[in-house]
């Protein structure tokens, strides 16, 4: 318990001092995971919408496959991306290994299955309610699916936050493809791993608390936006 109290104190101290290295590490964490979610959402949500309406032999097997990828260990993703981006690998000439770009790629691979599998479920459920009526209006199955993403945008936002949480908290993938290079590819989670292995547990825990704090602030900001959105409809006479 002493360790935790000490870590809390240390965390507050770190935040108060706003050491340049720490700020840069936090910023990199947010940027990498944010970019991965932004890019991943393009592919993931489109794939989810498509999977919800695709009807070809084997489409059910594909859905099972995507759902299985939800359990992809992050370090496995890291290894696969590492082997792709390695100089001896197919994409070595891109020179992306051990750069933030590689980390974004790895985390994108990690979040796309989450976004696809969960948005597929979301869209399929919504289509059960109103899919026929959208078809009656002339929507193709895919158009109806995409409209349902618009219709359920608050649920989609929660989905994106889930994916972001997964990305910013993982350490396996970014460690392997980023190399945890000081000042270049060191993010919060790899810093925590490093301090843990150096035996500086209070600092590791403190960094963990700082990370949670930053993500918590982000969530609070989004929750505030959500309330304003809903409040708007409430004032307009929502029922």
């Amino acid at each position: 318990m002493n360790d935790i109290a000490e870590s809390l104190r240390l965390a507050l101290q770190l935040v108060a001092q706003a050491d340049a290295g720490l700020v840069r590490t936090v910023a990199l964490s947010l940027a990498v995971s944010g970019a991965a979610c932004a890019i991943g959402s393009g592919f993931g949500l489109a794939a989810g919408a498509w999977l919800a309406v695709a009807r070809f032999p084997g489409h059910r097997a594909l859905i099972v496959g995507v759902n299985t990828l939800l359990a992809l260990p992050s370090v496995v993703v890291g290894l696969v991306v590492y082997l792709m981006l390695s100089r001896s690998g197919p994409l070595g000439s891109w020179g992306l290994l051990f750069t933030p770009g590689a980390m974004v790629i790895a985390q994108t691979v990690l979040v796309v299955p989450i976004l696809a599998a969960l948005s597929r479920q979301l869209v399929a459920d919504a289509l059960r309610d109103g899919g026929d009526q959208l078809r009656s209006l002339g929507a193709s199955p895919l158009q109806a699916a995409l409209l349902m993403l618009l219709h359920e945008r608050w649920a989609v936002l929660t989905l994106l936050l889930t994916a972001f949480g997964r990305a910013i908290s993982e350490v396996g993938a970014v460690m392997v493809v980023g190399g945890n290079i000081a000042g270049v590819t060191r993010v919060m989670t790899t810093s925590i791993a490093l301090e843990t292995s150096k035996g500086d547990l209070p600092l590791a825990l403190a960094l963990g608390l700082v990370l949670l704090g930053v993500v918590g602030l982000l969530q609070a900001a989004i929750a505030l936006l959500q309330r304003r959105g809903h409040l708007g409809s409430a004032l307009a006479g929502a029922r």
Partner: protein
Amino acid sequence: MSGAVSPQAISARTTAVELVDASVRFGGVTALSKANLHVARGEFIALIGANGSGKTTLLRALHGLVAHDGRRTLGAGQREAMVFQRPFVLRVSLRRNLLIALALARVPREERAARAAQALQRVGLAALADRPARALSGGELQRCALARAWAVRANLLYLDEPTANLDPAAKREVESLLEGFARDGMTVVMSTHNLGQAKRLATRIVYLDRGALRADLPTAEFFAAHGLDARADLFLKGELPWTSD
């Protein structure tokens, strides 16, 4: 089946939509058996019958929303729209719902705003244009669906018990809109529980019982009740059980 066939000549130029020998089965249940229905342009047909008699299935088969093993022919230049019992609206404003419907109907971008505004005007919802569509009342939702149909210049309209859940004032509003549409030349096929409504609005009554069309007559003849199918007769008198067995 008792009663005469539609008095209109059956020809491509006057057909709105036609269904020949259509049967629909869901699992072990036959929802519609060998339905034959010719709808001529300009007609206002009311489908009546107990719950489960196949009215909704017939409407969906006519609109092409459900698979059947007969033949369905849509007349040339016919643009369909359907008003469901509980219209589905997206979680956006009323106006945006209309704009999306117009986009889905491939109306050119420049025309959409104007058509949406006109449609809202026509059904009396202009004041609510920027409200969230999910916040509309039952009657307002029905009018929204009618606005969608009007905006895309539909000339063949299906309605599934449009006023079943509405209070009398809202019901009158919807009925008056339907009368206006019919006067403008729209072909209407509407299912209803309300015999008075059917008598007031329809030019032709089709009675369904347990998935089969049992009577198909012009309104006046139907309600004169001469030589009607026994069950249709009982239905008119209100003496049939509540649901089909």
